[in-house]
């Protein structure tokens, strides 16, 4: 890379409390800036974090840093916050007459996203609150059928009336979702033209653009979510772009999408739904990038924070996607990095059932306030963090690098009263029980993420993120037979790190159900149409020729099924030959049996193609990560002390060496049992395991070696 004026790549990730900034220079040196998030105007916090990073780099201010920035990446939670707090735009919906209740009926399916323990409690279960009040849903006479034939023509007068009523009710955004707009979108377009003409200030979201897939409920839900966050997202990204430009950035911010690529300001404004959960998505794409550098193609990216444990799968370098994710208990059609999650974290509460004498952990958590008992903020119920402290895994005087101290007495007291006494156990045994149960829950979730999809967890390397992750990771990994756990150097800012390694990625798709053997011309025509749009968008963003990668895939299933499998195709956009198409069908059969088990496939049922998908990538130069020379294996110099730690292998707590992460040298090896303390987390090295610091200063735990 030439040493130009533009020597930094910058990533800014806005979280609930903190805004992280990561900069990487041309040698791959990572510098971190942090600032409080500023909910009134998040762009203020973003620039504060940039300034903080600039200071660490010894630069004058944010203007100097931005003036020497090559690419600026960004992930924001504005859409997530608006949805969670119900503070999105006032949104109206226009739909086909007879189908106004589609969103409320939800196909009768409403337990997605509800914890398993609550699904069977019929006395308390409810549907989520309506996304759009009934008064803001307007029906218009019109009807298209499955072939795209118009059966009832759209009546412009009715549209006019509906829009006028919505406008006078004060809507800021209008979602339009008509039955079978995926077969013919002319009525949706006609409505859009009328709205744009009469009320140019209203944000518009068309189902045929946002989610052009079959299924009116999911398509409508996606379109409404997009409409309700659209005004905010578009205002925000435009304002941020302006402010960055004023402050010296040459170019526009690139905004992270939930599928792990970035888009420019205009494209983001149109597809606001893409920003949902984009911060965590950046983290997973960062894991894929690190895995690529480290030559680890198969990764389980796990994240254990205060309340939630999440796992995503990277297989053969590619991140597993979810095409029908659940958002706030609604199924939507938006491509998103696939995440399995459960309520398990440092704050998960342990409790006993006095009747049965059983010990349970979670899914309820103590939250940030009061938090675990050991935080000393008034929490009295024992949590996983309290157990970790009792067991000696955490250092009460060096939590979060000493930024917070923990109250060991409170932790003991909570575990004793909440678990040990009712079960007649010692405090240590009770804490060990909490620790084992939460680990088992997490390994059960990883099993769900791998084994259930036909993967063998033993083929994967596990990445452990989140404050609580590295305390537990070696145990939940061992339970699954996983051999290596990596705690990346950048674990504390992994979302921001993921940002700087991103590409520009556009996603396209459409539903067109074709029975197999499909008409090849039509298959190629569908892909061509998507590819044309992709090339135009990429060209507008400045990508052509070698810098462009196009990947196509098909959602397929056996006839009459409803769940599809996504089958990849040869890279590129060349028309498919008959032979290649045959190959795709065979790959479906193989993928089906791999996913659901040998003998599950049934070719006699016939197959069908449901959806065409195309991903277009504009490849950006990837930053390098600094590599350090490896020194000798002896880590003795990094020992900062010893303390009593409980391991299930030993009857009693035993004196265990504690290492300071900062003093460890690449190449150092540590034999378990040991504890490594970093400024952001604690890494537990269990008896029989070894820890090694690698050339990137990541800690690798080698399980059972």
């Amino acid at each position, binding site marked *: 890379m030439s040493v130009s004026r533009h020597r930094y790549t910058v990533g800014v990730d806005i979280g609930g409390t903190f805004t992280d900034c990561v900069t990487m220079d041309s040698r791959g040196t990572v510098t971190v800036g942090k600032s409080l998030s500023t909910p009134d105007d998040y762009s203020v916090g973003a620039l504060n974090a940039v300034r903080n990073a600039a200071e660490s780099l010894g630069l004058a201010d944010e203007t100097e840093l931005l003036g020497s920035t090559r690419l600026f990446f960004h992930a924001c939670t504005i859409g997530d916050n608006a949805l969670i707090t119900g503070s999105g735009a006032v949104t109206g919906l226009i739909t086909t*007459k007879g189908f106004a209740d589609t969103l409320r009926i939800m196909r009768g399916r409403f337990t997605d996203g509800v914890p398993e323990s609550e699904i069977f409690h019929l006395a308390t279960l409810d549907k989520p609150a309506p996304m759009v009040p009934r008064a803001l849903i307007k029906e218009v006479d019109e009807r298209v059928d499955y072939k795209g034939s118009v*059966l009832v023509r759209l009546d412009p007068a009715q549209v006019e009336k509906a829009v006028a009523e919505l406008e006078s009710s004060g809507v800021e955004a209008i979602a339009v979702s008509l039955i079978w707009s995926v077969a013919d979108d002319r009525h949706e377009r006609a409505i859009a033209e009328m709205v744009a003409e009469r009320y140019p200030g209203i944000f518009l979201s068309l189902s045929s653009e946002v989610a052009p897939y079959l299924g009116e409920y999911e398509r409508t839900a996606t379109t409404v979510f997009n409409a309700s966050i659209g005004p905010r997202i578009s205002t925000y990204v435009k304002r941020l772009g302006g402010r960055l430009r004023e402050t010296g950035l040459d170019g526009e911010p690139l905004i992270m999408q939930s599928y792990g690529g970035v888009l420019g300001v205009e494209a983001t404004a149109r597809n606001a739904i893409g920003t949902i959960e984009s911060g965590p998505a950046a983290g997973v794409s960062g894991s894929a990038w690190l895995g690529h550098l480290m030559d680890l193609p198969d990764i389980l990216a796990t994240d254990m924070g205060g309340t939630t444990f999440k796992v995503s799968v990277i297989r053969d370098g590619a991140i597993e996607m979810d095409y029908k994710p659940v958002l706030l208990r609604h199924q939507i059609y938006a491509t998103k990095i696939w995440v399995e999650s459960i309520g398990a974290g440092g704050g998960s509460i342990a409790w006993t059932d006095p009747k049965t004498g059983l010990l349970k952990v979670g899914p309820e958590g103590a939250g940030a306030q009061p938090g675990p008992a050991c935080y000393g903020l008034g929490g009295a119920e024992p949590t996983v963090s309290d157990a970790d402290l009792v067991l000696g895994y955490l250092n009460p005087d060096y939590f979060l690098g000493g930024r917070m101290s923990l109250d060991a007495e409170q932790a003991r007291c909570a575990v004793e009263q909440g678990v040990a006494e009712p079960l007649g156990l010692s405090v240590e045994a009770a804490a060990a029980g909490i620790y084992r149960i939460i680990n088992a829950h997490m390994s059960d979730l990883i099993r769900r993420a791998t084994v259930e999809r036909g993967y063998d967890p033993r083929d994967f390397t596990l990445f452990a993120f989140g404050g609580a992750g590295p305390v537990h990771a070696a145990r939940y990994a061992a339970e699954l037979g996983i051999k290596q756990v990596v705690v990346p150097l950048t674990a504390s800012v992994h979302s921001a790190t993921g940002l700087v390694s991103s590409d520009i990625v556009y996603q396209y798709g459409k539903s067109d159900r074709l029975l197999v053997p499909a008409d090849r011309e039509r298959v190629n025509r569908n892909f061509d149409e998507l590819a044309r749009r992709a090339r135009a968008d990429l060209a507008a963003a400045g990508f052509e020729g070698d810098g462009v990668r196009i990947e196509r895939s098909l959602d397929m299933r056996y006839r009459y099924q409803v769940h599809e499998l996504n089958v990849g195709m040869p890279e590129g956009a060349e028309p498919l030959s008959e032979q290649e198409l045959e190959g795709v069908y065979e790959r479906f059969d193989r993928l089906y049996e791999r996913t659901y088990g040998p003998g599950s496939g049934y070719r*006699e049922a016939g197959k069908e193609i449901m959806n065409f998908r195309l991903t277009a990538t504009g490849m950006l130069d990837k930053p390098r990560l600094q590599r350090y020379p490896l020194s000798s294996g002896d880590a003795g110099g990094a020992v900062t002390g010893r303390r009593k730690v409980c391991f299930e292998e030993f009857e009693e707590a035993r004196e265990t060496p504690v290492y300071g992460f900062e003093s460890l040298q690449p190449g150092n090896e540590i034999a378990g049992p040991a504890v490594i303390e970093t400024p952001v987390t604690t890494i537990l090295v269990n008896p029989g395991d070894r820890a090694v610091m690698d050339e990137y200063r990541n800690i690798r735990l080698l399980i059972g070696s």
Partner: protein
Amino acid sequence: MDTRIRGIDPVTFEILSHRLHQVTREMGITLERTGGTVNTTQQRDYMASLYRPDGEILCAGATLGQHVACASCAVKSIIKRFPPDEIFEDDVFLLNDPYLAAIHQSDVYVIAPIHHRGRLVAWSATFVHVNDVGAMSPGGDSPDATEIFHEGLRVPGIKLVERGRLRQDVFDTLTNMTRQPGMVGLDFKCEIAANNVAKARLAEMYDHYGPELLESVGNEMIRYTEAILRERIDSFEDGEWTEELALEAQDTWRMKVTLRKRGDRLVFDFTGTDPQAVTGVNLPFHGTAGFCFAAVLTTLVYDLPKNHGVLRPLEVIAPEGTLVNVKYPGPVSMNTTSCGFGIGFLASSVLMQMLGTHERWRDEIVTPNASHRNGKHSGISQYGRYCVFNLAHGAMDGNGARAYRDGIDSGGTYMSCPNAEWFELNFPVLYLFRRHAVDSAGPGRFRGGLAVETAHTPHDAPEGRLGGVAYGVAGLRNSGHGMYGGYPGAPSVIVLREGTRVHEVMGRDRSAVDLDEVGGRERVLPYCNFEFNEGDVLYMRVASGGGYGDPLTREPGRVRADVADGVVSEDAARDIYGVALKPETREVDPDATDALRRRVGHGNGGSVHTRSGMDSHPGTSCPGCGATAAESGPQARVFPPTEAGPLMGDMEGRYLFEKLYCSSCKALIRADMVSEER
């Protein structure tokens, strides 16, 4: 009995019971992803569970408790039929005989032994409702069948897979006897796949933890569920509660249950139920017991591990030769959604009455619902192929009201229904509307959930027509029932409108959402096969939830919100809820509301009924002053059915709406439809 876990450390117990539960969950997901029929892929009309070597339930999956219990019979039946030395590792069995274990032939059980080091340590079993079984009517439910031999293939136990090898000859023989071998093949395959999942996961657990530990975990799970359930039952005062339900179609069939609670046991006694029918609505005994088991699971056991321990404190009495214990070779093909759901309703109703007597359990009440009315079509699709399809409307029933909240609107008896677009893509029909039915929810302080109403017409059917089958809980009381003064929900109906103007209306560029405008000759369908011709419209309204508490005590603001949402009409707001809205603002008029409520409430109106309706509900006590029936000497007043809501018109001439008031405090004790004959 000691309710504490014994002989095993509680941490290990928790970890392993969680794992077992995860295995049944994964089996279910496998069925859902790989099944053929919409019952499996969308409705969660499936079951996946684990059993002990003797066939007792080890760990029940989350869905359809009745099949969890019946599959236990199926496992036992396989054990009986096949000598131990003929049950090999990696065998998979299939059984669907209702006279052995299944409920009707469409319910196909697939069962697999699980071995550890050559020893049989457990069984897994699944059930799915396959798309066709070669019965008289396409899709299985056969209204014209009069004996079991009309109702399709009936397998008493056969090896589908032997030592890991699919017996293709057997597989082909079975699918060959159905109208849609491709889809039924997928249904069988998904069951094999799910049992393979169980085998693989359990093998890993047995290798890791050893058979002794797993066996003691299994023993303890069952023992402690039983102990807690017994303790819970014992915490109620002894008592007796009854309920009745009539299926009304071409004939009327009455079912009756008495729940006797004695100490730590529950006895469901169906004595008094009508003799078995010549139509296939009859249940085998194990089916009846299974539905009772399921009702207990969702009430007293909702938060406990679900296993054989639940069955032990229960007894079911069902006289032979009746609707609830059919004698061979009586027909059964429509039984699950008719008498089966009827029993589900009866059992749940008496349990709810029992819960109402206990402070701790009253909050768990969900008013019972005799839900499920549905249809199937068959014929040539727009793609020129023969097809059979289930309209899957059972996923859109309104659910019962709760003690502290409204019932769930379109919450469903089953999991979910496909999109209208999915139906139209695959089958030659066009939906005219799919919406919440105004005033369908049973009124109450907390109202029931709203039902969905739909209408569809043939579209692009190459032959210009389709076949149809109407089934489910037929009758006028086939919906939610109210409790403590809550009103019943609107009945569910299937109405065929023949020779409508639907094409004409749409030809004028109007959506055909107004049935008066669509017209046609109306025919309310009983259990029957019917022809569905070009220009016909099928209107279906599923069951609604019943209300909880007197609607006159509903917070007026909630009524106003329902009116604003268009789900309660202004007439109903005024006449049933006694809520007056200001004409200009549509806000509640408090003074007019007070006056209205005084006028319509407190036992006014209607005519005094000579009969006390309390005889069928002797356990009911006044929600106002707590007086028992004997003490309060309740007064009955009767009204025409439409007093309970504008959708009750069909009941005119057959039912009266009866309100029971407490003589001492005037509170509404019960509001229900009673047969005019009585």
